[in-house]
């Protein structure tokens, strides 16, 4: 089989060889090279910093055990990122859930016949002023927090972590269509939360 090392993967290949040879320094390098990104991802999913660090630790330990069977079909970083997300989701599932709001109550409303109850308003284009941006960021975080857990996770994994629909369906344990609809409804709910902050005042 021809060697498939690209510039991006050459570093990976060398590190992988050192890891498989059991070199301690290589393990530390792996953690420092990829741990930051993994932490960032799981911090969004899990409620506390302690939970996030625990998840990253579990992810690395799991990866260390599997290092011999890593095929190199994806980059090391991508592989670790997936393991981290998996670890975070497993941790989330084991936690006691707060009572979830019903997503239907967060959706835009329609009359019989399919008309909007309230006409959607244009959003202001003056949204890039620093003051407004800070307000929007706070509103986004609040909005994401207020989503039912399944919807919150789906939104984060798709729009922020960049999982494709197949990967997302896999992680959530649902069909691709169900996963897509979950993301869509999460976005609709979030839009409703942002609307009061962004809608242009009517004349």
């Amino acid at each position, binding site marked *: 089989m021809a060697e498939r090392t690209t510039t991006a993967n050459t570093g990976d290949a060398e590190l992988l060889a050192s890891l498989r040879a059991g070199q301690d320094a290589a393990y530390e390098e792996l953690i420092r090279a990829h741990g930051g990104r993994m932490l960032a991802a799981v911090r*969004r999913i899990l409620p506390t910093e302690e939970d996030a660090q625990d998840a990253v630790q579990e992810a690395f330990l799991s990866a260390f055990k599997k290092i011999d069977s890593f095929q190199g079909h994806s980059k090391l970083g991508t592989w670790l990122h997936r393991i981290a997300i998996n670890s975070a989701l497993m941790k989330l599932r084991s936690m006691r859930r707060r009572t979830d709001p019903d997503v239907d109550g967060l959706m835009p409303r329609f009359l019989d016949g399919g008309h909007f109850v309230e006409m959607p308003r244009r959003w202001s284009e003056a949204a890039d002023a620093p003051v407004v941006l800070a307000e929007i960021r706070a509103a986004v975080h609040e909005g994401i927090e207020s989503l039912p857990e399944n919807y919150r996770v789906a939104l984060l994994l798709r729009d*922020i972590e960049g999982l494709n629909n197949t990967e997302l369906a896999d992680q959530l344990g649902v069909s691709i269509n169900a996963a*897509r609809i979950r993301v869509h409804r999460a976005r609709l709910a979030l839009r409703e939360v942002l609307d009061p902050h962004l809608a242009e005042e009517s004349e």
Partner: protein
Amino acid sequence: MNCDELRESVFDYVEKNLSDARRADFERHVEECGPCGELMADVRKLTCKEFVEFLHDYFEDELPAEQRATFDRHMELCPPCRDYLESYEATIEFEKLACTEDGSVSSDVPDELVRAILRARNDST
């Protein structure tokens, strides 16, 4: 009412905002004008509720060409749905803005965590 006026009035007609007289004009024109008749047939294929419900399919280019055309047609004639689509796109942009420029993006692993992981590895080998 001519065809241009009709196109501009479609939204108000659907929302039942037209006066009785104008409504009668509208309906008469639709009956008598082939292209406008087709337009209204098209309009009736998609309500605003359905537009919103399948927006993600439109947005991610998962609609067959004919349905995509129906969506495009709906947006031409329905300003609120145009605005809604823009706000949907903006929502996604704001999500990314909010979630990737805060502290969760730090690229350093705390030293204690590095040590804890290495310790745990050594404990299990």
